[in-house]
């Protein structure tokens, strides 16, 4: 080709000749050689120039090697002096930062790394990673997160940075960010280990989304998690939480009423519990086993942390306030029921429910508390009654245990009381539900032998208020025993039984009510008052047979105070008004007697006529009272029949000393009241009586009063 070009007589051929000139080639070769030589020299000069100003190079290299070979403390010491002498040695600064980090001084390490990056523009993924690690070790998670994001924006493919970002964001709870880093790393590395860890991170991110109220996002994340690892427990739990019923084991299936197996793959209970892990990783929160099978700590399947797992519910480690009480409650001991009983006594509904749930087991401690509670028994008694109605045998047993406990010498010496009186009201309220049990007790030899129990049986039958059942007692109990027990019972509880008083001969009427030893006047009165109209004659007969008695009369008068019983009480008192006059007058004069009762009492007193005058006059004291006007009015309402007794009463007030002008003050007020009563009586008889009194009266003031009353009476 060259020959062909040479053949052409052109400028190109001249150029070729020139290029083929040996001188030219020599010049080119020499120039090239010189250029290479100069280039090499310049390069060497440049590298030597870089060395200028470098100090303590041996120390620098020594420190770097110490740092790289795992001797951070030596490295930190050596490199510290290098950086002090040669602050612009970026390598020394970076190595010093690494050494300080290795020596667990992250704050100082961060300072060195930061200066290397910001002041000396020492970039690179390793520097960024070091900065992130420094911040993380120093506990500055927020800044570390910012830094790792910035570093990833610059070095998105750096695996070490990606792994650090994954771990850091997981620790900070930014699981979605961690997941992004994890995905990138997984794309580069793959492997089952990363797959499991990624599944854990996705599941954590899903749980977080769920707690934020984003179920759709959570569902996506759980799906992704199960895509990585189909056995991931947390993702399955999460799916169950957002309503995938397939993931919830059928609860009833396989769980029996016997012992439960809480572990094992085949255990239905274990399947349920798997949704609610007990132990989690303390670093990333992934569910973990408490310990491996051989007693070693199991590693976290997600982050690989080997520290012991912690409770998913940290509060499980909280201390119990009263462990002793907890055991008592769990084992339902007497101490626990006694504590409940004390609470129930104060009105605690929860304690009440718990006692009732306790059933027969709660009875003994309840009875003990009841027995010791003195007057504040009402709430406890109600619970015991409920329990006794459900299980009367247990009540009787508990009573027997309690009774047996009090039979010791110490109890006798300390005067421990008999519990039966405290239990009697309970037995009286057990009602028909316990009848079968008590009928059996009545017929049992053991029941008959226990005197206290016999009394309680009587209590039960009295409380039952069933005449036919009460009649059964007659077969096993002597009337005198029944009467004795009836006498200790409150009247209002005996009354319902008496109110059933049958027509004709009966055990109740003949053996009990007519027994003079029966001291239940209030009960009789209450029964009579509660009984319907058609039974009233029966009670009248009983009262007639027993005689009204002071207590009965007082009770009847007392019942005049009450609106419900007033009519019947007045009706009964009509029969015994003469006997009960004193009681009637006392009630009439009593300022505490309600006003509504006064008309009834007044009617009953007025019906007694002139016999009522002396007790009425005795109502006047030596000084005025608020009832005086009422008594004066009642006396006046008696009319002329009262004039003579009033006159006699007037005369009796001063006795014989009055006649001789002594003791003028005695009975002055009473006599003034009598004068007013006489003044209020219509008719000439009263006027005449006033005249006679005026003539006889030696007390000038009273005489003046009598005259004035008479004058007014005579004045039309």
């Amino acid at each position, binding site marked *: 080709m060259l020959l062909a070009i040479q053949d052409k007589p052109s400028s190109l051929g001249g150029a070729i000749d020139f290029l083929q000139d040996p001188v030219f*080639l*020599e010049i080119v070769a*020499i120039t090239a050689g010189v250029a290479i030589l100069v280039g090499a020299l310049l390069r060497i000069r440049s*590298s*030597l120039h870089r*060395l200028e100003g*470098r100090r303590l*190079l041996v120390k620098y*290299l*020594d420190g770097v*090697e110490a740092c*790289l*070979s*795992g*001797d951070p*403390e030596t490295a930190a010491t050596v490199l510290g002096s290098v950086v002090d002498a040669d602050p612009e040695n970026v*390598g020394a600064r*970076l190595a010093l930062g690494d050494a300080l980090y290795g020596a667990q001084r992250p704050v100082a390490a961060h300072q060195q790394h930061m200066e290397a990056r910001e002041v000396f523009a020492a970039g*690179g993924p*390793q*520097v960024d990673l070091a900065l992130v690690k420094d911040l993380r070790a120093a506990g500055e998670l927020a800044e570390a997160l910012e830094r790792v994001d910035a570093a990833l924006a610059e070095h998105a493919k*750096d695996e070490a940075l990606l792994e650090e970002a994954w771990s850091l964001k997981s620790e900070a*709870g930014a699981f979605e960010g961690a997941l992004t880093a994890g995905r990138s790393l997984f794309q580069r590395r793959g492997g089952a280990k990363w797959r499991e860890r990624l599944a854990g991170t996705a599941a*954590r*991110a899903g*749980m*977080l989304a*769920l*707690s934020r109220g984003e179920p759709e996002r959570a569902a996506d994340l759980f799906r992704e998690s199960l895509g990585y690892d189909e056995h991931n427990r947390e993702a399955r739990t999460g799916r169950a*939480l957002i309503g995938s019923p397939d993931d919830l084991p059928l*609860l*009833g299936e396989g769980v029996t*009423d*016997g*012992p*439960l197996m*809480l572990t094992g793959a085949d255990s239905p209970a274990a399947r*349920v519990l798997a949704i*609610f892990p*007990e*132990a989690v990783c303390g670093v990333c*929160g992934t569910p973990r086993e*408490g*310990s491996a099978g051989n*007693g*070693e*700590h199991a590693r976290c399947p997600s982050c690989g942390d080997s520290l*012991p797992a*912690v*409770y*998913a*519910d940290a509060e*499980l480690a*909280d*201390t*119990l306030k009263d*462990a*002793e009480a*907890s055991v008592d409650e*769990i084992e339902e001991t007497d101490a626990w029921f006694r504590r409940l009983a004390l609470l129930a006594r104060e009105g605690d509904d929860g304690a009440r429910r718990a006692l009732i749930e306790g059933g027969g087991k709660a009875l003994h401690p309840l009875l003990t508390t009841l027995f010791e509670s003195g007057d504040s028994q009402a709430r406890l008694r109600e619970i015991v009654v409920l329990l006794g109605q459900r299980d009367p045998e247990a009540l009787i047993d508990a009573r027997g245990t309690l009774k047996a406990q009090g039979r010791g010498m110490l109890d006798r010496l300390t005067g421990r009381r008999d519990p039966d009186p405290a239990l009697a009201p309970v037995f009286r309220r057990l009602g028909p539900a316990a009848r079968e049990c008590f009928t059996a007790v009545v017929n049992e030899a053991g029941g008959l032998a226990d005197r206290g129990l016999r009394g309680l049986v009587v209590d039960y039958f009295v409380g039952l208020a069933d005449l036919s059942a009460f009649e059964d007692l007659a077969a096993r109990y002597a009337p005198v025993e029944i009467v004795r027990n009836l006498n200790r019972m409150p009247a209002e509880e005996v009354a319902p039984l008496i109110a059933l008083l049958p027509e004709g001969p009966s055990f109740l009427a003949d053996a009990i009510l007519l027994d003079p030893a029966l001291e239940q006047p209030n009960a009789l009165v209450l029964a009579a008052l509660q009984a319907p109209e058609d039974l009233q004659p029966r009670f009248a007969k009983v009262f007639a047979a027993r005689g009204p008695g002071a207590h009965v009369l007082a009770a009847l008068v007392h019942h005049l105070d009450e609106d419900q019983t007033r009519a019947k009480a007045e009706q009964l008192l009509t029969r015994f008004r003469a006997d009960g006059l004193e009681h009637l007058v006392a009630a009439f004069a009593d300022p505490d007697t309600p006003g509504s009762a006064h008309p009834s009492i007044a009617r009953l007193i007025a019906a007694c006529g002139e016999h009522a005058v002396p007790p009425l006059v005795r109502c006047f004291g030596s000084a005025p009272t608020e009832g005086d006007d009422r008594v004066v009015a009642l006396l006046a309402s008696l009319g002329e029949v009262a004039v003579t007794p009033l006159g006699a009463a007037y005369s009796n007030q001063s006795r014989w000393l009055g006649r001789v002008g002594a003791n003028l003050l005695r009975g002055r007020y009473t006599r003034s009241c009598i004068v007013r009563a006489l003044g209020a009586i219509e008719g000439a008889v009263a006027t005449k009586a006033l005249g006679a009194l005026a003539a006889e009266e030696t007390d000038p003031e009273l005489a003046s009063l009598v005259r004035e009353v008479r004058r007014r009476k005579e004045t039309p």
Partner: protein
Amino acid sequence: MSWLGSLNPLRAFSGYFERHPWHRRLLILAPILLLLALLNPVIGSVDKLLALVGKVLEPLINTGVGRGILLVLLLLLICVLVYTFARERVLNVLRRHALSMHLQATEALLRGEHDRARKGFARVLRWGRWIDLSKGPVSAYGSLSIDARLKTARIRLSEDDVRRARAELARIPRAALSKRLAFSYAELNARVFAGHPDHLPDSVLRVLDDSHKAWPQHVGIGELYADVLLQHGDGARAAEVLTETMRRTSKGQAPRVAERLARLHADLARTALHSGDLALAGKNVDRPLRLFESEEARLLKADVHLAKGNADAALAVLSDLATPAAKERLGALLRHEAAPLTPRVLLSRVPRRDSLVVLAEWYLENGEIRRAARALEVCLRSGPPSPRVLALLALARLSQRAPEAANAALERALTTLSARGAP
């Protein structure tokens, strides 16, 4: 002319000459040229000599080959002169150049730019073939070639390329290692042998032993050696190695070794426990607790007590630990046949909510469902609701044939879990 000081006649122009250096040089040359002009005969002689040389060289200069020969001869002459008069200076310049490259590569390594660093160290190694890099400005540190190889091996190891790392280390003359480099070599060699799949176990042990002897205070080597010894079942020797390392390492590193040693003793105790050697287990279990107070060691101590049937001592240890692992041990104490524990004693010694869960699980497993339910209720009442406890309660209710209560408990468990979300 600074030596003339104030007597310098050109002092007033010093500023001008500093700004115009060629004028200054001309002024200096002027007297020399004047002197040469006066020495004309001498110059004539020199001229004749040069003319003679020219005549000799002229045939060579006129031909290309001759010029080439002349150039080669000239270069040889320069080389001989340099070798004769400035050999060390030139070598030092080249060593400094190699050092500069080495420093650049080191900085790249510190920045994490491994490719750049590896290439840099490769260049240093190439220079090292021609120049002795153990001399020069950093001779006190050691040979740069060896350092470059060590750092290259380190890069290879960080990339999990153990074989190439081993190849680098194999080329290092051990006799030429300085102290620091010998430490590094020992450390890298230990890692390489421990990570190299093809070495015989005895070789690995021998190398690790050498490394440990070379740098006994190095924590990494000690741990590596101990791990390998453990793999060979020589726990006692492993403990010796770590004990020596702990004794000799710095104060800052000692706690880490102590922790590792404690774990090792714990492992030994666990092994002894599983093999039924309670005496050895007891002996080993106290050491970790003396060295480093860890939950694992305390649990192990409880295990040993439990194995000895000393429930009281086990309980004393477990009462301070509130973790799921400790809870498992408490459950084991309840189930222990030789020294069974009563619930009352358990709760009085470990009065925590998790003890109630232990009791509940024990009751459930024994079929005492009512008591289990009560224990769980007490647990729930004594603190915030726990999904796990609620789930157990649901199981207890199911077992009590109370499906509605079970569903309610489970629903509450799910709600609590959902509300709690991620920690």
